[in-house]
C-alpha cells in the first residue's frame, strides 16, 4: 500500500499511523518546524512551503514505490504539508511497514533522506520581519547519496 499526500491541512498523526499499521514492524519519521535562531534577527516566526503541483506527488510516489520494492514493504506513506506554518507544526510524515524492523527502519530513513533532495519543495522563512529562501544543504545531498 502506497499513500502519498501534499496538502495545506495539518498532518493528522493518528490517522497516518493507523493507515500504515500492518506487518510486524512500523517505522515513522515526523519533521517539525523548528524555531531556528538566525544571528542578529531572532528566531523563525513562520515557514512557508512552496511546491510543484503534480511533479511533487509523482516524485513522492516514485520514492515510495522504490522503497517498497527495495525493502518489500507492506505499506509506505509520505505526507508533506505546504503553505504557511509555525514552529512546532508538522511539516512532513513518513511511515513504513514491513515484516521485520530493519526493513521498516531503513526504508523510513531512505524516504526522508531522498525526499529532501528528490522532491520539489522550497522553504521560505520569516525571521525578524524579513523573509528568506532556505538554502539547500550539502549534508542533505550526502545523506541522500548514501542510498545509491
Amino acid at each position, binding site marked *: 500500500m502506497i499513500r502519498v499526500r501534499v496538502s495545506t491541512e495539518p498532518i493528522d498523526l493518528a490517522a497516518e499511523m493507523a493507515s500504515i499499521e500492518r506487518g510486524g514492524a512500523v517505522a515513522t519519521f515526523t519533521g517539525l518546524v523548528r524555531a531556528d535562531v538566525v544571528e542578529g534577527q531572532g528566531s523563525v516566526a513562520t515557514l512557508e512551503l512552496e511546491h510543484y503541483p503534480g511533479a511533487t506527488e509523482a516524485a513522492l510516489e516514485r520514492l515510495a514505490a522504490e522503497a517498497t520494492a527495495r525493502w518489500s514493504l507492506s505499506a509506505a506513506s509520505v505526507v*508533506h504539508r505546504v503553505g504557511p506554518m509555525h514552529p512546532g507544526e508538522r511539516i512532513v510524515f513518513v511511515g513504513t511497514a514491513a515484516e521485520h524492523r530493519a526493513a521498516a527502519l531503513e526504508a523510513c530513513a531512505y524516504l526522508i533522506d531522498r525526499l529532501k533532495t528528490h522532491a520539489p519543495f*522550497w522553504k521560505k522563512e520569516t525571521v525578524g520581519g524579513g523573509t528568506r529562501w532556505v538554502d539547500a544543504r550539502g549534508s542533505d545531498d550526502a545523506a541522500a547519496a548514501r542510498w545509491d
Partner: protein
Amino acid sequence: MRVLYFAWVRERVGAGEEEVTPPGEVATVADLAAWLAGRSEGHAAAFAEPARLRAAVDQAFVPLDAPIAGAREVAIFPPVTGG
C-alpha cells in the same frame, strides 16, 4: 512551451509561469535560461547564476544541459529544500 518558475526564481521573474516560443537554436534548458534572461531585468536576475538553478522537463528532473525539443513544460527553480 509552458515555462514554470518556483521559489526565488519565481519571485525574481515576477510570475509563476509563462508561455514562450524560443527560437530553434535554444536546444537545452541552459540555452532556454540564457534566452529567457533577455526578457526583463527580473528574468536577468533570476537566471544570472546557472549553477544555482535546477530544472525539470515535462515534470522529470533533468540536468541543465538536457534537451528541450518537444517539451510541453519546462520548470526552472533553485535546489529543493523540502522535508
